């Protein structure tokens, strides 16, 4: 950045020296021309600095239990050139490719579909590929998701999360199938709207990591798993027997009733799923299910 600005200054000095011998009118026109040139040069220089030289300061959590001398958790600093539209994931990829190939993190699709790169960025769970650096304060602090075991650097062990997701039996099991094998199993538009948001889940684990209750209670199903249960329990095509079974799972002690409506999961969800709303709906559903007086 500094070299470019110096060049700029020497150029304008040279141009200033030239029109000294001209008539006043020439001098005025020359001054005007020069002013325009200066403004143009300044604009170009500014754009160049924006394109190439603006940098972002990353503080990245590092930890590697397998290498001696890296077993102590610490933060590494990376200075990465910024470009417009750069995401946290882009910056991490740059740092890994240019500075330190041992920097480890998960990523795959880079467009908020695969759910691999949920990270704890500046004190909050975010999806790396969906978070613009321009939205963050410098320095950008990147850490692995809290409340999960760190495997290495930014990679956390998701096994427990996947166990909880599978505990609610997240699959479709209707009572009756259409007679024709090729026929679609139709759903009303209203019902589709009910479950629409819950189908968006990408299993990134941000909600589970943000949840205080899940942090203190390993058996709690967690927002994502309950959302998964909601997706099937609220689907009108779901079989009655499977629905009862699923409700039995979620209304247990460590099921929906652990939720204390702190709304942390809803706040951090990168797909904007109203998780708390779904958990509350399942609470009502399980109460209704058990309070049958008729």
């Amino acid at each position, binding site marked *: 950045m500094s070299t470019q600005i110096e060049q700029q200054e020497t150029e304008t000095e040279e141009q200033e020296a030239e029109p000294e011998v001209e008539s006043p009118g020439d001098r005025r026109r020359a001054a005007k021309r020069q002013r325009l040139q200066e403004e143009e040069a300044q604009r170009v220089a500014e754009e160049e600095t924006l394109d190439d030289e603006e940098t972002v300061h990353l503080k990245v*959590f590092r*930890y590697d239990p397998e290498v001696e001398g890296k077993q102590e*958790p610490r933060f590494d600093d990376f200075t990465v050139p910024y470009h417009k539209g750069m995401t946290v994931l882009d910056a991490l990829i740059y740092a890994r490719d240019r500075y330190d190939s041992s920097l480890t993190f998960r990523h795959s699709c880079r467009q908020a579909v695969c759910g691999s790169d949920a990270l*704890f960025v*500046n*004190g*909050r769970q975010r999806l790396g590929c969906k978070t613009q650096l321009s939205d963050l304060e410098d320095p950008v602090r990147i*850490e692995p998701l*809290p*409340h*999960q*075991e*760190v495997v290495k650097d930014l990679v956390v062990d998701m096994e*427990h999360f996947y166990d909880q997701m599978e505990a609610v039996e997240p699959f479709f099991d209707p009572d009756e199938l259409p007679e024709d094998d090729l026929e679609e199993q139709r759903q009303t538009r209203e019902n589709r709207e009910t479950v629409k948001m819950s189908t968006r889940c990408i299993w990134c684990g941000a909600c589970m990591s943000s949840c*205080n209750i*899940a*942090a*203190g209670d*390993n058996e709690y199903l967690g927002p994502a798993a309950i959302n998964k249960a909601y997706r099937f329990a609220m689907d009108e095509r779901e079989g009655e027997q499977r629905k009862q079974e699923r409700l039995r799972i979620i209304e247990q002690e460590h099921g929906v009733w652990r939720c*204390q*409506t*702190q*709304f*942390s999961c*809803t*706040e951090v969800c990168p797909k904007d799923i*109203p998780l*708390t*709303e779904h958990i*509350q*709906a399942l*609470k*009502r559903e399980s109460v209704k299910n058990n309070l049958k007086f008729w």
Partner: protein
Amino acid sequence: MSQSYNRGTVEDFGRWREFTAGMWAWIFHKFTGWVLVGYLFTHIAVLSTAINVDPAAAQSSADIYTNTIAGLESLLVVRFLEVGLLAVAVFHILNGIRLLMVDLGVGLESQDKSFYASLVLTGAIVVASVPTFLGGKLV
């Protein structure tokens, strides 16, 4: 999860910089709840030691109950504590209504606004109550 592995200082609670409305509401609700429980027991303790009412003494407002209350009211600290108790109770009531709405599934998308509203309303009621609690003459 949290029990199985200790990340040392990086797992420190201070890393959580972005507490949102729902979390603050939860913390305040727990806090005010415990304060109200504490007050309940203090209240029972104070009144149960002040109920030997002698009708004759009560007539001349010199019985133990009147003396106890008057004694407490003469302390400036108690006056301030009363304002605090009102603040705590009002917030707990308003946030309780908010939580009722959340449980019924009404307006969950504006839960943060209702939290701020209950804070503002609590503040207004407490300010309005100050003349009543602090205005009387200290005996």
